[in-house]
């Protein structure tokens, strides 16, 4: 168990180091995210709908895009990793490989989110500081859900010709429960509503994370078997 975690961390560290050496993907993801946020400002009628009504949805659609980008850039690394797969034969290593990939993707997506969040607060004039801690918790929980399922889907999509198209087609239905929950909880946080109102959604989000992380760990090895 400990060995698996250590191996996972090593794999994640390797991926993250590779990623930050070139930084192109990260910077592109940041720019894309900033542009999406900016475009959202114009994608509405300011006289009809206030920004605060749309804000939670805008935040989470933006984060979903960020997650897609993060998972997509992993494809390039994937092809380099082919050589590594041959070395990883034991079931424990396969779990470690999956967890390592998830961790690396979490670092990437999390970093983009960390910069996008203050930008979002700025563009849409949303006071996030009073609710920062629960907000970060929700973002973390939902992102874990996205990335866990997304990493599994990526490992299948990477072997198809149009991988970047295949990934959203496979993944998006699975993002409905975490995104819906995250938007509803975020909306209540922004509106200053009592947290008890969001408990149902929080339970759904946590339940989703638990079930799907376990399922993905179980099924990951079926996606890389030779």
């Amino acid at each position: 168990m400990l060995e698996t975690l250590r191996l996972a961390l090593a794999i994640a560290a390797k991926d993250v180091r590779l990623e930050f050496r070139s930084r192109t993907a990260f910077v592109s993801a940041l720019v894309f995210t900033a542009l999406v946020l900016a475009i959202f400002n114009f994608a509405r009628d300011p006289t009809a709908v206030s920004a605060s009504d749309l804000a939670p949805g805008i935040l989470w659609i933006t984060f979903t895009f960020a997650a897609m980008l993060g998972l997509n850039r992993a494809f390039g690394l994937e092809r380099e990793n082919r050589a590594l797969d041959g070395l990883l034969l034991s079931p424990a290593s396969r779990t470690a490989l999956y967890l390592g990939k998830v961790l690396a993707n979490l670092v990437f997506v999390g970093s983009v989110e960390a910069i996008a969040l203050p930008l979002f607060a700025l563009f849409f004039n949303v006071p996030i500081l009073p609710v920062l801690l629960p907000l970060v918790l929700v973002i973390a929980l939902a992102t874990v859900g996205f990335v866990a399922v997304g990493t599994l889907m990526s490992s299948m999509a990477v072997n198809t010709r149009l991988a970047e198209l295949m990934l959203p087609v496979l993944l998006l239905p699975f993002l409905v429960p975490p995104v819906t929950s995250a938007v509803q909880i975020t909306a209540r946080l922004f509106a200053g509503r009592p947290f008890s109102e969001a408990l149902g959604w929080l339970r759904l989000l946590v339940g989703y994370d638990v079930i799907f992380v376990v399922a993905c760990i179980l099924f990951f090895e079926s996606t890389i078997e030779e």
Partner: protein
Amino acid sequence: MTPTEQAERTLRRTVPLIVVAVVLVAAVYVRALVFTPYEMVQGPAQKIFYIHVPSAWVAFLAFGIVGVTSVVYLFLKDPRLDLFAASTAEVGMVFTTAVLVTGPIWGKPIWGTWWTWDARLTLTLFLWFVILGYLILRTAVHEPGQRARYSAVLGILGALLVPFIHISVYLFRTMHPMPVVLRPGRPTLPGEMLATLLFGFAVFTFLFAALLRYRYALARLADARAHAEAERADA
């Protein structure tokens, strides 16, 4: 008998079953349209129910079969299970599409809107997307073993997704009441209507089974021919 001949025989033998099934569907149509009384509050459009609900039952049945077959495949690795799951997904897709088409046509006159994000329609929509992803994935992966494994994983995850979508919609709906012009509600069905509905269930399930048998035989045939060719190439 070679696998190829076996599959060809099943194909031939299933054609009469399909014909019978189509005739039975016509019988359901006649019974529903002519011999079943109208529902006074909803009007004639209520009769869409007799096509929509049995189709939905089959769609969910198919999805369940794909899920279960996928699990068994991951344990047994028998390629026939994969072919069966894929055939079920394809045939199931047809029934799911029928649900998504008849649903809004029923919804417009009854609820005043073509689409509502009610629990069942939403769940059916996402089922449709997952099966579509499943079928697209299969066309995009060429190695049969890999294709089978990927399909199985997607099939199982898709089945796991169902309760979560259901809960999401339920939680969502308790906040947003549905637009309502006429409330269909859940009345207890009078005998005539219940009989028609049950007849519909039986017939649509039979249609599903017949089409599935044919589709599966087609898959086995294609598979057998591919193997025969591969053997000839080796020789």
